[in-house]
């Protein structure tokens, strides 16, 4: 027993010592050494923050899942950098009437297993998303679809129950093969038409992809892609600096941006994203239900400081629910300027006065107190909330902070168990997606029970109007109202950051955070 033990000890010490000194040795094996299991050759190593929950595009719900499905699958369309739908699996489409789309599919496409891609796969994909029992997370986006019909092998017709303007923006969802996708295991072994095939998924640590030589847009530039799961933001950037990965994408700690930018080994891209971060006000709450309080709070939010200091300029100060990347964006809505004096006088006018001199305002013997909520996963939001707590306290509002993990926070939001919450929306490819569910009286995500018939009407109209200019006007009007009534106070327009090694070329940054352009990326040695 003792001898074995001693043997193990000796072996272990020897190996550890060897490993310490032998650093250069194995560096020769992979390009720069260390990250994940050894991979060699023509490869791009990418750092992701979480393990994908699934690899089925219909079920994808987290950023990593999207980043996998984006390179394994193709949609009928692709959204370009201006969010305009461009042909992908559908070569072209037409819009014979307000309720019908007809898509003409590419005929040269095969799935990774060699089976041809046909109209049946398209129908299958959308039928399954619409199937309630399938529990697709974004089912509501497709709900207006009445039917998907196969016209011929390479023609599909989609009919909606009413005019539904945003639909095209949502048709970039990956098409799955009918012959495989019913397998229970499909979510772990995705087979698509995209530029890369998934070859190996080490749960919680690595995902390996191999170029799909048969890709209809031509063979991808790089042979292999590896995604490494590195949950910690700081570690992930460190991994880039240590040469363990070649590319990483938001989320990053804003404070890392400057350093990497000034490091000539790396390139940093920043772009506006498709999301915003906002304060959500609960209209059911007696305190927050009072407009003066909401206005005062809004004037106490120093968006400039949050954007520039906490987010290091990665995000921009926000104004309204319409984001800059969208065609519906307008400068006309100014939002609320940072003006604590004004905030105080607004409260003063509403009768909230500090009578007992404790620094907190009262009215009718009730203290003006507010609980600020956010979730714990995003350190910057936690910092923003901490900052807001101080700002609100300074104008005489007794403010405390409550941070919860995402699922608990989500439940608080859905059950209306909050006063003011800081959170965000992503993937706002269409203004409808940014506003309908959020501000319509019947909207599924109208946590704060905001209700204004005029806004309801505008949002319904915006949805059924096809003309983009007309829609832009409608949404501008709606955004103006909700901003004035302070349903939301949009604090930030989210930005995306991509960092990669200088040698990496061909990766383009997309406001949607898409990884599709990995098919054109290559490391030049």
């Amino acid at each position, binding site marked *: *027993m003792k001898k074995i033990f001693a043997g*193990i*000890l000796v072996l*272990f*010490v020897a*190996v550890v010592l*060897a*490993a*310490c000194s*032998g*650093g250069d*040795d*194995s560096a020769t*094996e992979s390009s720069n*050494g*260390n*990250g*994940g*299991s*050894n991979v060699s050759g023509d490869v791009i190593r990418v750092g992701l923050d979480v393990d994908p*929950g*699934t690899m089925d595009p219909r079920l994808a*719900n987290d950023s990593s899942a999207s980043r996998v499905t984006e390179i394994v699958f193709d949609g009928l369309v692709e959204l370009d950098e201006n969010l305009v739908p461009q042909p992908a699996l559908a070569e072209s489409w037409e819009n014979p009437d307000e309720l019908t789309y007809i898509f003409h599919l590419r005929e040269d496409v095969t799935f990774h297993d060699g089976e041809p891609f046909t109209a049946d796969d398209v129908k299958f994909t959308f039928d399954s998303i619409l199937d*309630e*029992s399938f*529990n697709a*997370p974004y*089912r*509501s*986006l497709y709900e207006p679809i009445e039917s998907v019909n196969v016209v011929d092998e390479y023609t599909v017709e989609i009919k909606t129950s009413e005019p539904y303007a945003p639909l095209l923006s949502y048709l970039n969802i990956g098409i799955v093969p009918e012959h495989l996708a019913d397998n229970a295991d499909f979510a*772990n072994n995705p087979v698509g038409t995209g530029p890369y095939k998934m070859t190996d998924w*080490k*749960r*919680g*640590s*690595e995902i390996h992809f191999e170029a799909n030589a048969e890709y209809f847009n031509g063979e991808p530039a790089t042979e292999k892609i590896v995604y*490494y*799961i*590195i*949950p910690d933001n*700081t*570690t992930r950037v*460190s*991994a880039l*600096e*240590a*040469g*363990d990965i070649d590319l990483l994408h938001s989320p990053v700690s804003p404070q890392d941006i400057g350093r990497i930018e000034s490091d000539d080994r790396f390139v940093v891209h920043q772009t506006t994203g498709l999301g915003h971060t906002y304060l959500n006000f609960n209209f059911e709450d007696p305190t927050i239900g009072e407009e003066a309080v909401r206005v005062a709070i809004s004037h106490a939010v120093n968006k400039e400081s949050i954007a520039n200091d906490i987010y290091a300029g990665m995000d921009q100060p926000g104004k309204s629910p319409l984001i800059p990347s969208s065609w519906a964006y307008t400068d006309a809505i100014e939002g609320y300027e940072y003006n604590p004096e004004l905030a105080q006088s607004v409260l003063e006018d509403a009768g909230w006065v500090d009578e007992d001199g404790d620094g907190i305002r009262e009215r009718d013997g009730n203290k003006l107190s507010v609980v600020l909520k956010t979730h714990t996963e995003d350190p910057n939001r936690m910092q923003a909330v901490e900052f807001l707590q101080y700002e609100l306290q300074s104008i005489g509002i007794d403010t405390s902070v409550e941070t*919860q*993990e*995402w*699922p*608990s*926070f*989500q*439940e608080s939001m*859905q059950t209306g168990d909050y006063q003011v919450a800081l959170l965000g929306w992503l993937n706002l490819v269409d203004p409808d997606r940014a506003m309908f*569910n959020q501000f319509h009286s019947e909207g*599924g*995500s109208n946590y704060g029970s905001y209700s204004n018939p005029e806004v309801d009407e505008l949002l319904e109209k915006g949805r059924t109007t096809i003309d983009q200019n007309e829609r832009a006007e409608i949404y501008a009007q709606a955004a103006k109202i909700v901003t004035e009534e302070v349903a939301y106070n949009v604090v930030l327009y989210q930005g995306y950051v991509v960092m990669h090694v200088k040698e990496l070329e061909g990766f383009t940054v997309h406001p949607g955070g898409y990884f599709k352009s990995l098919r054109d990326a290559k490391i030049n040695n």
Partner: protein
Amino acid sequence: MKKYILRRLLQLIPVLLGIAVISFLLLHMIPGDPATVLLGQEATPEEIERLQENLGLNDPLPVQLFNYLGSIVTFDLGTSIFRGEEVSTIILTALPATIELAVCSLLISLIIAVPLGIIAAVRQNTFLDYFSMFFAQLGISMPVFWLGVLLIMGFSVHLGWFPSFGRGEPLTEGFIHLFTTGSFSVLFASLKHLFLPALSLGVMGSAMITRMIRSTMIEVLDMDYIRTMRAGGTIEFLIVMKYAFRNALLPVITIVGLQFGNLLGGAIVTETIFGWPGLGSLVISSISQRDFPIVQGVVLTIALLFALVNLIVDLLYARINPKIRHN
């Protein structure tokens, strides 16, 4: 012997059931449910409601608990809500990584603790003693995550000696590679990945073991039978390393068993920092997804592992301690 092991395993049943019940109730007390997470922010309340119904989350809690216990006793850990895979499959994939990490941490703990403890005991109340104990204490005084990040900063980012995250091939693969091809490369790479996380955990564990070795060693060196050996003219080195060490080892072995539990717990944080794909990072991500079957499965697995390690420790204890061996 067999009877003893069997009895111990039987004793484990109520404990595991207790753990199952407590973890079940605790997890269901946590606000937020898997359906909400699974469907995301844009899902409608009706969709969420429907999914909850499908997942059986709307049944009364006692019914859910009963169903859960029912499946547990048939060795069915259920299916992951998020992955759709069998929980047992998921756990079996992550388990080796955690065991590898825990065992190596334990080895590092011992490598640090055994010499320090012995030196401290033999040179009791001298500078060497204080130094050893101070050094050992440093380890346990640092939050593991802090030490982990510092190690990454120092050894990966600045020195570039060790990888900053992730796991290489399993150690077993490394050994197979070594024995089939004679090449150390795979084993090397695996050990390099293992070193920093194992070190940060091992340093934590070493404090307790060091002081245990020190105090049992001091106690043993004061024993009559050591005096007997001295009276027989035995050289001091042999007295310490042979006649005292094995006796001192006995209580240490028990501590090492408990320490293993701490390591499994510490691994939860360490794995998250180092992106180590074991039970720890699995359970953390599963909690944040409210993937209850996985969390419960991991808790049961860790408890079982802990119990088995302690059973092994007890058997080992019996092997070294003739008093028990003969009863």
